[in-house]
């Protein structure tokens, strides 16, 4: 039957069928991209956001919690508004923004919900709740924002916000998606992996218009979210709040550390801002305001501001001299003001006297002996070798590099090396007379307030420190904090050398910082003045107390407040009193600090 032209027709039929089946084989069997596209079409992943972990202070007072806010969602297809004016009045929204939001919702989808009014507070929600039933196509979605019951420790705790594009690009784990909230600074940022918990997901089937068609595979693949872990901070909330009160109207830093653990009791960056303003609906607006503020409240001064250490550094010089055998308690130098200026005090002085009187010429001469040991005939070479050896000893005090606190953005300060001077002056073009300012903590030398507080802790501990940190337990487990916070770090200075230094620090207060002295608590401290070419000097003070069994080591910086003995020493002393006794028995001193008139 199939002959001639009928055969051609039959063969053509077979050929076309073969082509169709071949193409079908290609798209159905060999190519699985269509399967993925089909899943993307019909399976929608709905994220179940976890509850973010809470943060408590060292005494289990709440620092950060989650506050529910309400997003009013609208389904444009179902929403019909008769009386726009009344609606606007009830929900406290301007007509213009109602129209804008509703149009945005309509453009996104006619049938899927979009936010109409975002982040209605708890109180406001209670007010409008009853009116909701009058409107079709509206429903409420609950979310939570961070809240701070005491409005304290904003810079240490940090804030959360929507993840930005670079962060999203850096996230190699693929955990985050656009619109997720992440810690952007402070503890929120550093402990993000612990705080965030784990997102859950529901897989549901949707049709072409995005309408829910039930669970995918009966929900077998769905996962529940896992709440974030609670953190216990090392901060003492009461001390923090009191310190912030004392620093009101000032610029500067306060860092207090528990010496025997490295736990940070208080960390203040003044001017402080209320952390509650960086949550909820006004985040963007308030962030702009803070960011543009010339006082730079978002700049976390304790770990980011750097100043020359000034006189306080003389204690480090003394300890290095003692350890190296260059100095003994009896080493005496004349207060030779032709070398470097000084103030009136008896001369000559021994080491104790030098610390007590903060004698500049003494350290000019002592530092020369530390640097120039005559290991080389060439004075340039000799200085170079001496400087690098000295620098190594200084670095062991936690200076010149980041300490490694559990915050992002910490600055390391700087301790000059021979390479730095080579760059500035050229090789073999500098010697002791070039670098002698280092002897009194000036010159090419910068430290952060955190490093200064750590120095105080080292003096209190007689030679060691723990890396200062803000978190002492994760989910109630102290062993889960990073290992570097559990390691004792030695300065290489024998503890015997600290006895005399501690005594001198205690004795010095009667001369330089009499306001800091308390009747019942023995305190050792040292004033400093960070020179500020742009205006009044910064007032600096470090201390620890009680001297015999130190519980607190503190560094206070008050910018443009002149002598360390006034603003900084008074503030530090009040905070020590507060921490050790939980009360203030010196109302006059408190008044003096609160008034903030330090220059007269």
């Amino acid at each position: 039957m199939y002959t001639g032209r009928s055969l051609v027709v039959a063969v053509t039929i077979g050929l076309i069928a073969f082509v169709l089946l071949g193409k079908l084989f290609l798209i159905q069997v060999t190519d699985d991209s269509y399967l993925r596209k089909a899943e993307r079409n019909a399976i929608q992943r709905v994220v179940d956001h976890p509850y973010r972990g809470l943060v408590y202070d060292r005494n289990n007072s709440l620092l950060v919690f989650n506050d529910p806010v309400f997003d009013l969602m609208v389904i444009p297809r179902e929403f019909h508004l008769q009386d726009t004016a009344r609606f606007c009045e009830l929900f406290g929204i301007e007509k213009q923004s109602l129209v804008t939001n509703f149009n945005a919702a309509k453009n996104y989808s006619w049938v899927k919900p979009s936010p109409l009014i975002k982040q209605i507070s708890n109180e406001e929600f209670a007010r409008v709740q009853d009116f909701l039933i009058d409107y079709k196509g509206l429903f409420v979605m609950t979310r939570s924002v961070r809240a701070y019951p005491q409005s304290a420790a904003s810079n240490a705790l940090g804030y959360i916000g929507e993840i930005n594009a670079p962060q999203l690009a850096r996230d190699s784990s693929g955990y985050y998606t656009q619109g997720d909230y992440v810690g952007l600074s402070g503890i929120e940022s550093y402990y993000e992996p612990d705080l965030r918990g784990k997102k859950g997901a529901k897989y549901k089937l949707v049709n072409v218009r995005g309408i829910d068609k039930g669970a995918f595979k009966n929900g077998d693949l769905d996962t529940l979210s896992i709440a974030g872990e609670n953190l216990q901070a090392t901060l003492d909330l009461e001390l923090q709040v009191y310190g912030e009160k004392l620093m009101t109207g000032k610029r500067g830093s306060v860092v207090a550390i528990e010496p025997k653990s490295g736990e940070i009791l208080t960390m203040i960056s003044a001017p402080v801002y209320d952390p509650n303003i960086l949550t909820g609906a006004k985040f963007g607006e308030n962030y702009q305001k803070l960011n543009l503020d010339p006082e730079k409240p978002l700049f976390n001064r304790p770990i980011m501001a750097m100043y020359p250490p000034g006189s306080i550094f003389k204690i480090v010089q003394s300890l290095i001299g003692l350890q190296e055998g260059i100095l003994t308690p009896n080493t005496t130098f004349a207060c030779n003001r032709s070398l470097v200026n000084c103030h009136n005090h008896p001369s000559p002085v021994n080491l104790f006297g030098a610390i007590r009187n903060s004698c500049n010429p003494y350290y000019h001469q002592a530092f020369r002996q530390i640097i120039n040991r005559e290991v080389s005939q060439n004075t340039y070479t000799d200085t170079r070798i001496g400087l690098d050896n000295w620098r190594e000893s200084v670095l062991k005090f936690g200076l010149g590099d980041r300490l490694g606190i559990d915050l992002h953005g910490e600055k390391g300060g700087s301790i000059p090396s021979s390479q730095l001077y080579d760059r500035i002056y050229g090789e073999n073009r500098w010697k002791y007379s070039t670098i002698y300012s280092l002897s009194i903590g000036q010159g090419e030398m910068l430290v952060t307030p955190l490093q200064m507080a750590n120095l105080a802790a080292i003096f209190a501990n007689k030679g060691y420190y723990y890396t200062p940190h803000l978190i002492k337990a994760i989910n109630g487990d102290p062993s889960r904090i990073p290992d570097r916070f559990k390691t004792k770090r030695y300065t290489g200075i024998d503890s015997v050398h600290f006895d005399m230094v501690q005594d001198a620090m205690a004795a010095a207060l009667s001369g330089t910082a009499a306001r800091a002295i308390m009747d019942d608590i023995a305190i050792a401290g040292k004033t400093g003045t960070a020179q500020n070419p742009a205006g009044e000097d910064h007032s600096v003070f470090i201390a620890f107390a009680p001297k015999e069994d130190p519980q607190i080591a503190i560094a206070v910086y008050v910018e443009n407040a002149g002598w360390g003995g006034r603003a900084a020493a008074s503030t530090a002393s009040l905070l020590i009193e507060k921490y050790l006794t939980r009360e203030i028995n010196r109302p006059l001193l408190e008044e003096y600090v609160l008034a903030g008139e330090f220059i007269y």
Partner: protein
Amino acid sequence: MRQKDTYFHKIDWITIGLYFALVLVGWLNIYAAVYDGQNNTSIFDFSINSGKQLIWIGTAVVLITLIMVADYRLFQNLSLVLYLVFIVILFLTPFIGKEINGQRAWFELGIFRLQPAEFTKFATALALAKLMENPTFDLGKWSHQAKAMGIILLPVALIMLQPDTGTAMVYSSFFIMLYREGMPQKYYVFSLGLIGLSILTLTINNNWYLFGGLAVVVVLMVLASKKSWKNLLGIFFLGVLMVTYAYSLDRVVEKLPPHQQNRIMVLFDPDVDPLGVGWNVTQSKIAIGSGGLLGKGYLEGTQTKFDFVPEQHTDFIFCTLGEEFGWVGSLVMISLFVALLLRLVFLAERQKTRFSRIYGYCVLSLLFFHFSINIAMTIGLFPVVGIPLPFFSYGGSSLWSFTLLLFIFIKLDSHRIQILGRSY
């Protein structure tokens, strides 16, 4: 009694079996297309398309019965009358038809809608058979070719007024029948060459490559031909013609209405506009492609269940099958069709009269065209033209017209001994 028994045995039950197999599978797929997994509507529910299709199938069975009991001479005698009646209806359709999707192609009778253009197909087939059964009819002659073309082009012109390009295109399938009946081969060579050249023109963006390729073809032809002046001149003119055609085709496509232009562009690059014009093809390919080797299982296809493919119970019904039964299901279904088509070739060839053979080839041509173009369109091998998949697609007009078409031939075949037509 014996007489009746013989008639019963003369009916080709293989074709009828294939017909019912296809209709049944089609009906199950229509249910799968409307099924959304949430409300447990029965396949028999008359409020949904599968239930309605069951009514159409039922009425089709009535139609079959009527055809089978009718006098077989009726179709032969009435062929020209039927043709004229449907031409008049077609002519009236644009004036009294109901407008749907910008086309006036439907008549509304109560709750049912009928598409006259669907029925014109079998009337045209009958008219062609009637015209060409004359033993003096010779497709080698110009005037005879023109008569046949006239019968075909009259309904095409009227359908274009609706306008319904897809249905009009279907009439080109009669060239398969004409080929069998002796239309000169050169027309087909020329047409295939033209189609090939058109595809190349539309796919190759840089015309210089195309012109270069054509130059190579011309050179090869010169080398292969006998070198006479006449031949060389002919080849030269052919070359000029091809270049002119390719050049002007691009210009013409630019002048087409945008929706037709896009349908052609989408064929070559479905990503041109995946959410707009490309949506149908993109979603259709996703549905079919996601079926894999064995498919997702009956009623388990997410793409068809959740309406991602438009027109999925009518023109794109093949998606449901491709998604839920995979490549193996497609193989079975295409095999059923191929079996039916080859069976029709066999039946047509065994006819004693030219009338039945020509009519048989018309049936085969129409089914073959619908079948191959519809599936090719769902998998992106052909532009989206709105033509149904015979026996599968939802809809009374299409099911009735294909049933009529096929069963008139089965009826003629069952009487092939008795027909005392002018056999040659």
